[in-house]
């Protein structure tokens, strides 16, 4: 039997592989009834004890959203979400806000243990020898449940807290930067998020500070029929540096769940933000039933000269993904990077890519996208590189490689290129191929079965992106690639 056919079989088996994070946690939660109207928006704001200005912001967004239409131009075909069938707030019940993790519902902590997230500081310390500790903010359904290492970070002047807290405690910072990168009216999903977001992470790195540890947020959707609308805002002040990690999982459910997040990054002069994501939302079963709709707006603004924003993502989950982490290269000599691995299998659909908007002089962007389609899945790389007239000396290099496993899947590459500057150089390369038979044979003559060989070869294919991930994340991501393609491992 030819290697490729066997590979298809292996991949077909995958569907049967149980989604590792597909458990539902039995935790008492307070959930709003389904439906969305102005009252719900007001109630979310009230629940969060928000100041008046934030409520106004939400209401403005809600008004705009009602007038907007869901985008139709996407490649993925999915059953449209009925926004009135969703609940917009779900929170694990807490009598009072916990003062330390010891007071958190032990069931909740159990969840994080299952997820393999070391929430407790001593566990972090007991981790890999010599590894940098990681500060974690965990968002459960819509609410941030615990942030570790707060004190250590505070000493360095770093603010890392749930955004709901930041709105109350640091209103000036939030007012200045919130919605300044992704305007409310930017798109249908960002408007919705601006109206109903419940929590998320807030990060501020002061001038000249190299953040002493990696910051991380784990997102999890647990409650049924609940949309998750988190909101993240990261500000790196002049000359500072931060590396931020984001991980996502959700339980296995027959209905589709909606995740519509907004992430805003602001890098001021000489600052650098490195934002890494490992996204493993539940992707539905082998027939394509259920799974998360992942409609996310992520954008970074290189506002200062010589600033840098780098997005790295490993996307293996979700039934439908719609995601374009972008960079606005406003400052002169600023740099934007996008490194992406997207793996789709079974009936998953992904439409993902990036936008690089060059405004400042001598701005530089680099895009490396590796797409792997297997099973019946369909994947689109959609990217925009726009060089404005002001961006003299701009450079872009784009590389999109697709790998097809089996003969029922598809890969689509749609790079939009718009150039208005004479002194710019844009280069674009794209390829589509399959795993070479001779590489498969070579691996199998060394004793690896086809599953292991595919996992290994796909990891090799993704190398350029994987090496951009922070060490701790890279190991997890490598395993995830194996799991999402191999099937029998687990």
């Amino acid at each position, binding site marked *: 039997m030819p290697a490729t056919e066997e590979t298809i079989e292996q991949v077909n088996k995958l569907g049967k592989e149980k989604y590792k994070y597909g458990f539902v946690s039995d935790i008492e939660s307070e959930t709003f009834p389904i439906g969305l109207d102005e009252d719900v928006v007001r109630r979310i704001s009230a629940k969060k004890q928000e100041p008046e200005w934030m409520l106004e912001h939400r209401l403005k967004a809600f008004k705009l959203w009602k007038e907007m239409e869901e985008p139709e131009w996407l490649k993925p075909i999915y059953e449209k979400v009925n926004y009135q069938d969703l609940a917009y707030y779900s929170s694990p019940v807490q009598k009072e806000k916990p003062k330390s993790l010891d007071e958190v519902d032990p069931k909740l902590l159990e969840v994080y243990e299952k997820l393999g997230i070391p929430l407790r500081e001593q566990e972090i310390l007991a981790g890999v020898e010599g590894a940098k500790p990681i500060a974690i903010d965990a968002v459960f359904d819509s609410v941030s449940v615990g942030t570790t290492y707060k004190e250590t970070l505070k000493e360095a002047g770093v603010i890392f807290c749930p955004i709901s807290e930041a709105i109350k405690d640091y209103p000036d910072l939030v007012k200045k930067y919130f919605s300044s990168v992704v305007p409310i009216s930017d798109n249908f999903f960002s408007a919705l998020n601006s109206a109903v977001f419940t929590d998320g992470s807030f990060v501020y790195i002061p001038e000249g500070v190299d953040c002493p540890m990696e910051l991380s947020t784990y997102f999890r959707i647990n409650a049924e029929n609940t949309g998750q609308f988190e909101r993240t805002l990261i500000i790196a002040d002049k000359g500072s540096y931060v590396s931020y990690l984001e991980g996502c999982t959700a339980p296995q459910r027959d209905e589709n769940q909606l995740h519509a997040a907004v992430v805003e990054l602001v890098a001021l002069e000489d600052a650098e933000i490195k934002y890494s994501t490992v996204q493993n939302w539940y992707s539905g079963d082998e027939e394509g039933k259920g799974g998360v709709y992942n409609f996310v707006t992520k954008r970074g603004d290189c506002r200062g000269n010589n600033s840098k924003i780098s997005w790295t993502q490993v996307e293996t989950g979700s039934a439908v993904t719609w995601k374009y982490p972008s960079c606005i290269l406003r400052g002169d000599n600023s740099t934007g990077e996008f490194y992406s691995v997207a793996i789709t299998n079974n009936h998953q659909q992904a439409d993902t890519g990036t936008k690089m908007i060059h405004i400042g002089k001598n701005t530089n962007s680099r895009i490396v996208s590796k797409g792997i389609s297997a099973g019946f899945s369909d994947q689109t790389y959609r990217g925009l590189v726009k060089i404005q*007239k002001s961006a003299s000396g701009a450079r872009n290099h784009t590389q999109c490689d*697709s790998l097809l*496993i*089996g003969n029922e899947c*598809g890969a689509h590459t749609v790079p939009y290129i718009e*150039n208005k500057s004479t002194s710019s150089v844009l280069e674009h390369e794209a390829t*589509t191929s399959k795993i070479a038979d001779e590489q498969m044979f070579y691996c199998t003559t060394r004793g690896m079965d086809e599953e292991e060989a595919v996992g290994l070869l796909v990891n090799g294919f993704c190398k350029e992106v994987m090496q951009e991930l922070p060490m701790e994340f890279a190991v997890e991501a490598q395993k995830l690639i194996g799991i999402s393609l191999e099937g029998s491992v687990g």
Partner: protein
Amino acid sequence: MSLPNFLQGFEIADKKSLDCYNDIGLPTKKNENWHYLDMARVLSKQVYQKQLNDNHKSDNLFDAIKISVVNGNIGSVDNLPEGISITVGDGKFSDELINEKKHPLLLLNNSVAGDFINIDISQDIKQLIHIDYYNNAPNVAFLPKVVIRIASGKTASIIETFNSGKDCSVFCNSLTEIFVEEEAKLLQYKIQQDMGQSKHIAYTKAYVQKESFYEQNFACFNNEVTRNEVEVDILGTDANAEVRGVYIGKNKSVIDNTIRINHLASDCESQQLFKGVLNDRAQGIFQGKIYVDKEAQKTDGYQMHRSILLSDDAQVCGKPELEIYADDVKCSHGSSTGEINPEQLFYLTARGINENLARNLLLQAFLNEVFDNIENDIVRKYLQKNTIKTMETIL
């Protein structure tokens, strides 16, 4: 139902197409296929009319079998050699093309009454076949309908040239359907060199059978609005399709090349190669797509678009797409935009060549990569000569 306001003096030939056109309307930027060219805006300002013939005579530049079309009126064709038939009058596009396409301008062409040029090639034809479009009436509209068939195993070359008198405003909406039978070889050249304010919209559909070869070489020398759209269906194994183009733009010209190659059979090759030079406020657009069906294993598809911008106000937009459903294929695309290589420029000027000439030479060399593929000597030399001339006017 009636024809759109911008088109006057024409009769309706196909009501169904017209209904369909009226449902869709002219494409705007919301239509992905017209992402960078808003036809509704382009055609909002002026009314174009059916015009009468005039006794314009032109030289037979290519020593060709020549068909003259003046202001949209097709002249007679005499002294045809053996193995080719050209009839003017009744004709029909394939149902597949008309029914399945939601392409507004294609539907508009089919709505309007007018003569077809039917070219049937049954033997190898050594001479070039030349369709010479010339306009000298004001605000002329013409909607050419051309159907070309080439029999199994035969070879022929067709050239179409588009010229207009100075300051003559033109709306051209051309539709061409080409059938390339097994093992046949058809070379097509299109040269767009209207001097005036021409809105030139052309759609070419080619069906390419087993072991055959089809190529189109397009050249656009500085026109107002040009849309050259080519779609090739590769239907049989071991066939090859190549679509290439060169464009030079100045002032506010917009040149849109939209190419789609559908690989529907295995073991075929395709190539798209486009190069452009833009000055002033000119805009170049390239939307190229390689579609590979899941049956089309062992496809080798290649796509390249390169452009040079000479002015701060010029711009280039592109969307080089791949859509692939077969796992054993080799497809690649590349694209680059930039300026004249300053090192090369310095090298030439250091050898005593004045800067303008040096630029001209470097730009010619840049475009020659496309012309080098042209088999027909007369056509290649003609294009190279015109390139030099056009370059002199834009630099």
